[in-house]
């Protein structure tokens, strides 16, 4: 997956977790929490969805990398580089 494809995948996961939110104007450099109504259970949903969809394992002490879209894509890029986008 390319960084753009990873971003698209995260948007798809977020749209499931926060179906009432408009994600079209999401700023990649601002934290998710600044822009969306997300709590710790929602972040665990992102972790779980990545695990279920792509078998990507994210250790608990690395959850901090999921703070913003930019940091999430940067963190996931090496882990998802070899995954072929559906």
């Amino acid at each position, binding site marked *: 997956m390319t960084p753009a494809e990873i971003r698209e995948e995260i948007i798809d996961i977020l749209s499931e977790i926060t179906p009432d939110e408009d994600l079209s104007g999401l700023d990649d450099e601002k934290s998710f929490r600044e822009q969306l*109504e997300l709590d710790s259970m929602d972040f*665990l949903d992102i972790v779980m969805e990545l695990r279920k969809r792509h078998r990507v394992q994210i250790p608990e002490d690395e959850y901090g990398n999921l703070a913003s879209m930019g940091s999430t894509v940067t963190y996931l890029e090496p882990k998802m580089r070899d995954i072929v986008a559906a």
Partner: protein
Amino acid sequence: MSFADRTSQLPDDQRIVITGIGLTSPNGHNLEMFRESLLNGQSGVRNYNIRYVGDTLAGVCEFESTKYQSRRDMRRGTRAGTVGIWAASEAVARSGLDWANVDKSRVGIYIGVTEHGNVETENEIHSIKAYDYDVSYWSHHHNPRTVANNPAGEVALNMGITGPHYTIGAACAAGNAGIIQGVQMLRLNECDLAIAGGVSESIHTFGIFASFKSQGALASHQDPTKASRPFDKSRNGIVVSEGACLYILERLSDAKARSANIIAEIVSYAINTDATDFVLPNPERQAQCVNLALGRGGLVADQIDIVSTHATGTSTGDSQECLALRTVFAGCDNVSFNNTKSFIGHTMGAAGAIELAGNIPSFQDRVCHATINVDNLDEECAIPGLVLNQPKERNKVDYILNNSFGMLGINSVVIVRRF
């Protein structure tokens, strides 16, 4: 008008009245629609499919769920929470309460459930099958969704209620048990408003269907609308349904102080136990429960106008309840008996509350809704006064007695009076 029952003699702060009703039923998502369906013979049972069991029948509720709950919270929570939030919000909206200024720390939520947690547990096990049963794929939402207080807790979260909230597990007597808990907590001054009744999400658990099927107690019929047929010779079991019905209960003194529209008064109740079998009913104990409620309210059987029966459409259950009712109501020529499950199936934890609600408009229109789908009345169920297939107009309706029984031998009765 004055009444002779014992509750009428109590001080107003010990008398408990209904000032709001919110519900969703398979044949109506508010009391007016539900009542109209009951008077018009409109069933809410349809074809239904659920994993592993396959094609079957169920009562399914349709309502505008996003009216009171975000899609995010719906995803986060349970169906029991969603139907509960709908019923609680509708009850408040119809109560005339100035909700924004109600002290939420003095509101109690008491919700009866037959079971809770089966739906989510089944879903998770089904989900991790795709991952070779690796439990690292098990949802972190499982525990908050399956704790027994979940349906009441979701109502509290949604409505900002900070008083006590919990569920009452009472099998299929739970709807009545929730109401009774609300009455007791108001009398004990544990709260000033009680949101009380019952909910059910049971159509979303295959285990309920499969277990009734294994027991030989799951209804089947070519025409879904005719599948739930209590008292009929050809009845062959239960139609499982979802639903919710919650009441706003207040002390009469408080209701008067805010000039509330008082719908009815809860004048008595009783709960007892068979202690004889896991599943089979005990008509002697059922009769004792009805008599206990009558006696506690200072009432005698022929003062009751309508008896809302529990009968579910099983061979033994229906006839045994009728045996109990024959004992209690022998010689009472003016009592009308009906059954709501014949229209909507068995709404499980909601049944007691929802079946009472459908009868409450009788205080105004003096019509007893029928029991439908009785083509050949079973002689064992032929109690005098049974209202069959067409509604019956009555000269008066002052008292309604509501039966609701459940597995492990729990029996419950609630008696309400016109106000």
